[in-house]
């Protein structure tokens, strides 16, 4: 069992090393930045056009007092943005197409779409 525990620790250590390297490489790429604002439980702009084939940095600012969850099945992303605060989400690279997203906490009004061209 001891021997086995050592081996387990070894594999975890190796995993951490590999992920550290991945973090270092991933951080180097430059990204296109876009802004998205949440106001009165709506996204502004409701339609955002971005280039395809590029990683996109999405800055989301929630101007409402209540929290909102940015959620998109098409983009496979979800993130809670607290009231009166901002957050960052990275998406893509996307193939050309329409990617709907919504605010899970206020689905009736908070609807939007990212168009990759």
């Amino acid at each position: 069992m001891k021997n086995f525990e050592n081996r387990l620790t070894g594999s975890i250590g190796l995993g951490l090393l590999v992920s550290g390297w991945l973090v270092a490489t991933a951080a180097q790429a430059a990204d296109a930045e876009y802004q998205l604002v949440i106001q009165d439980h709506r996204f502004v702009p409701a339609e955002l056009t971005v280039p395809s084939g590029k990683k996109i940095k999405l800055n989301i600012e929630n101007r409402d007092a209540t929290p909102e969850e940015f959620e998109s099945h098409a983009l496979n992303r979800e993130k809670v943005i607290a009231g009166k605060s901002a957050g960052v989400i990275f998406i893509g690279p996307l193939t050309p197409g329409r990617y709907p997203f919504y605010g899970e906490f206020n689905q009736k009004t908070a609807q939007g779409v990212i168009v990759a061209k």
Partner: protein
Amino acid sequence: MLGTLVIVFREVLEAALLIGIVAAATRSIPGRNRWLAAGLLAGLSGAALVAAFTDVIGSLASGIGQELFNAIVLGIAVLMLAWHNIWMSTHGAELAAGARTVGNDIRDGRRECSILLVVVGLAVLREGSETVLFLYGIAASEGSRASSMLAGGAIGLALGVAVGYTIYAGLLRVPLRWFFTATGVLVLLLAAGLASQAARFLIQADLLPSLAAPLWDTSAILPEASIPGMLLHSLIGYDARPAGMQLVFYAIVLVLISVGMRLANRTNSVSKKIEPQLNIQQKGSAS
């Protein structure tokens, strides 16, 4: 009201299924209920804290604090589930046979219980904090409609707990012969699914490359928002549009835990069978 019900149900479901499976898997460990309750309480208080400090957590690490936090919580849960499964593969049979307090196993059993507490606590913390935020938003903004929405939330919560209890009760009906295999496989898949979710958060934070994204798209056949999709997502980590990196994490955790279980199982049975084996060897050399 229906909207609230669905959202709360979805959040609760994931934690409830995990708790149901882990509670079943640890059913023969003495004092398990107390640890389970402690885990629930710790998770709920943690969820309230995380919800209250969402903006602080979110603004850490230049806006990716939430992703890091989620990935760390998921990572710890994966490690704990791995430890649980490996421990169970050496002790499960003894526990089933009723030899609960043999020698060192008391200490081991206690360690296993603290793992149970952490796993349950983290599951409640993660899913609970989002539910708290969501309900807080409703209570703050909906005014007169708030009470009907909160009622929806309560029903969602009850339904989620009911599903969790169903899987728990169902697992207890599995014959003992299959029981540890069944819970072992379920915990293994849970852990792999959580690892895939952790990978997704790290991709979202741009700390990991996505590799092929999406690797496949089955959202037309089995959407994640459907009931079967939700169940499969919580149970085996189903993702309708996974990134390649998520699958890498899934596979690595699946293989590492399986190998760990096999090694632990072998070490255990070798130490028990050492005497009979010696006899066989002696007979062999004599002939």
